[in-house]
């Protein structure tokens, strides 16, 4: 009886979790798609932005917004939304392709670093599953390990016990691997904040003030690392040489 109650509680919690991620449909999604197909990119942007403002967080929505901005010549916003989409779906080939393509159109080019093929392969594996999938798999594996350990107690023969031990070991290895990858992604998500110049240009100033000295000017679509925010300014870093403050109104922070 007690066990039944526990299982029921878990099932109810899972149902609640599923219900919590389902969001109400936004009318702008369909309207935006229709406008996009009619080459009315400005209207598509308006419709899809309405959904974003309503709180819809969706990689496909961001990706489509990136496309609409690209088509209407707003390269900075296009890159910003591609990056936002990629943060939700890091392994999506379409998003990566369009982001790379848009970045070739920026005036300030980012240096392509030559990557180690082994490291590149590991990174591909790392991005094969989204963080959410990795976390869900980890959750299932963790529960499965607990259940197999319990089941082992009911198994009488030593062979059966050895099989259970083997299963637990195998699942633990998979859990550790996926868990490590997920942990790395969590750290990157929390610490690695990027920004994109959405205005036609953004001045990098020496201090978070309008009166401060301009050190550099970044062109539209240039991506940079965000160190922190101070009032209406973001402290940024771009490579080894550029460090300063940009106006938040001229950039988009990918969160």
């Amino acid at each position, binding site marked *: 009886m007690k066990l039944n109650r526990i299982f029921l509680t878990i099932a109810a919690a899972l149902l609640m979790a599923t219900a919590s991620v389902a969001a109400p449909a936004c009318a702008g999604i369909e309207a935006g798609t229709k406008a996009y197909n009619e080459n009315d990119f400005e209207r598509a942007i308006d419709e899809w932005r309405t959904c974003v403002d309503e709180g819809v967080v969706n990689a496909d929505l961001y990706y489509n917004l990136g496309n609409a901005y690209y088509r209407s010549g707003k390269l900075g916003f296009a890159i910003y939304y591609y990056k*936002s989409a990629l943060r939700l779906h890091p392994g999506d080939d379409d998003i990566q392709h369009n982001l790379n393509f848009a970045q*070739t159109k920026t005036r300030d080019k980012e240096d392509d670093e030559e990557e180690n093929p082994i490291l590149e392969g590991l990174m591909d594996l790392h991005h094969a599953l989204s963080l959410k999938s990795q976390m869900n798999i980890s959750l299932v594996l963790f529960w499965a390990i607990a259940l197999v350990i319990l089941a082992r107690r009911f198994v009488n023969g030593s062979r059966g016990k050895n099989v259970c031990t083997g299963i637990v070991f195998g699942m633990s290895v998979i859990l550790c691997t996926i868990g490590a990858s997920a942990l790395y992604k969590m750290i990157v998500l929390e610490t690695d904040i990027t920004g994109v110049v959405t205005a036609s240009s953004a001045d990098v100033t020496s201090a978070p003030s309008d*009166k401060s000295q301009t050190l550099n000017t970044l062109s539209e679509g240039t991506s940079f690392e965000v160190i922190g925010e101070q009032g209406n300014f973001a402290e940024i870093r771009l490579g080894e040489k550029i460090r300063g403050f940009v106006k938040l109104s001229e950039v988009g922070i990918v969160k």
Partner: protein
Amino acid sequence: MKRFLLLCLGLTALVGARPSLQFDKDRIEAGQTFNLQFIVPIQELPQNRGALHLETRDNFKLLGLDSADQVIRPEMDDIFNSFFGGGGRAYKARVYSFKVKAPKKTGQLDLGKLTWNIDGEPNLISSKIPVNVQRSFNDDALAVSLTPSKKSIYEGEQFSVTLSLHTFDHFQGGLQATDMSTGNDFIVHRNDLSNMEFKHVEGTRREMKATTRFAWLSPTKSGSLQIPSFKFKYTKLGEPKVVEEKKQMGNMSFSSRSVKQEPIETETATAPLNITVLPLPTEGKPDDFSGMVGSYSFDANFDKTNLKVGEALTLSINIKGDGIPGTITDPKLPDFSDFRSVPPENSINKKVKGAKVITTKDVKVFLYPKKKGTFEIPAITYSWFNPAKKKYETASAGPWTIEVEKGEAPAEPVYQAPVSAGTSTPAVQKQEIEFLGSDIRFIHAITDKSETAAPHRSILFWVLFAAAIPFYLIVNFAITRKRKRNSNKALVRKGKANKLLKEKFAKARTALKNGDGKGFYAALENGLIDYLSNLTNIEFKGMTRPQMKQELAKLHVKDETIAAIDSWLEKCAFVRFAPVSTTTEEQSRMLADVEKLCEALKL
């Protein structure tokens, strides 16, 4: 006069006394008053002497002359010399004191020329009186200054600022710049100050001087602008102080005096620099003027003028000038609508050449002709304001004629939105309109599902994750407890007693329903005996009734309960084995009574 001097020398050798020039202070500080003393032994004073005349130089100022007769006593060195056979006796002399004020300048200076009128003629006593003028210990040991190359400039014009540092004798070190901000009104290119070299100032003992171009600046607005003070921190030697120390050694006490100078941390600053920035003249301003002020050169060229469709054409633009350091605006490019272009490549470099920072901008525009034909590219112009000539200048390059022939490369891909099969969302399918990677991929169908970039922030997930641990512990505890319980047979048997009794009663009811009297009593009797056995873990089956009563008594069962059990068992045995028959009602009552008895039985 020669006779007089010979006489002086002779007497000097004899007595040890001689005319001499000396200062009343060991250290002569800039701006302070001191006395130059000319001492002449009384017996050597010339008879026909006139006035002494001091002609000052190097900004020394003569304030007055005084004279008095004094007894000059030899100093310790002279006493030591006289002891070993030299001169050194006290003598009477006339002391002429010139009260002089030292200049503010420091270093090895010449006080002037001293002459004396004897017999109506001027006789030279000393043609040069060297004086080492030092800074006062109370004054700064470091002098800093900023000097602009120009005090009046145009908006956007480049000028430089020179920083000078001068350290004096009492400078000890620890030099640090605490504030070298140039304010918010200038674009600045700072020089590398690590190569700043200090050089010894000639004619001084320890004074050093360094001068370097600190920065090149360009004002961002017109008006009266100010470069704030630069602040520096350093350590200098303080005023010498006489310190008296008393020491006790046994019954004897000593006192000693010493001069000590403590190091003092001090701050100094440059004077703020005022710069007048003139606005650019509006007269003659070209339409394409984009704000550059200085002397510029402009050049633009195409790498070829004949090409085929599919080939690239490169327009290279080079702009070079000494305006705002590190900044050059882009020239206005002509309409390249007949060409497909990729974003131009820009590179900006700045380099210090002579007294200026020269900024160079190279722009490369890559153009791909869309079709064959002859294309006229108009001239590209670039304008700037030359402050030296006080006028606007314009340079131009071109025009060019570009001949494009038909090539083998494919035509320019033109974007077309895919035709939707319907108006509803599912009509949007993933289509790639990618043309050899030359365009973006098509839009995605959007699901209503909201996602999160940070699922790890969900508390529910972590609750579900952590719930596995208490779940495991609870279930494990339950299993362990159950197993422990199962290992005690008596307890298990007792636990099952009620269940088995109910089964027996169910059997009895079935027998009652079927009219099977023997079966009914057998089930009732067995049920009661088994129930007792299960509760007590004592096998009552096979025991005689007196044995059974004895065992129950040992278990402290009440006598009336024992009697009731015995009576029921006897009844059951009697009915089973005697040829008597009972009615269904009697049997039902018996079953109810036995059930009550069993419920009341507590063991």
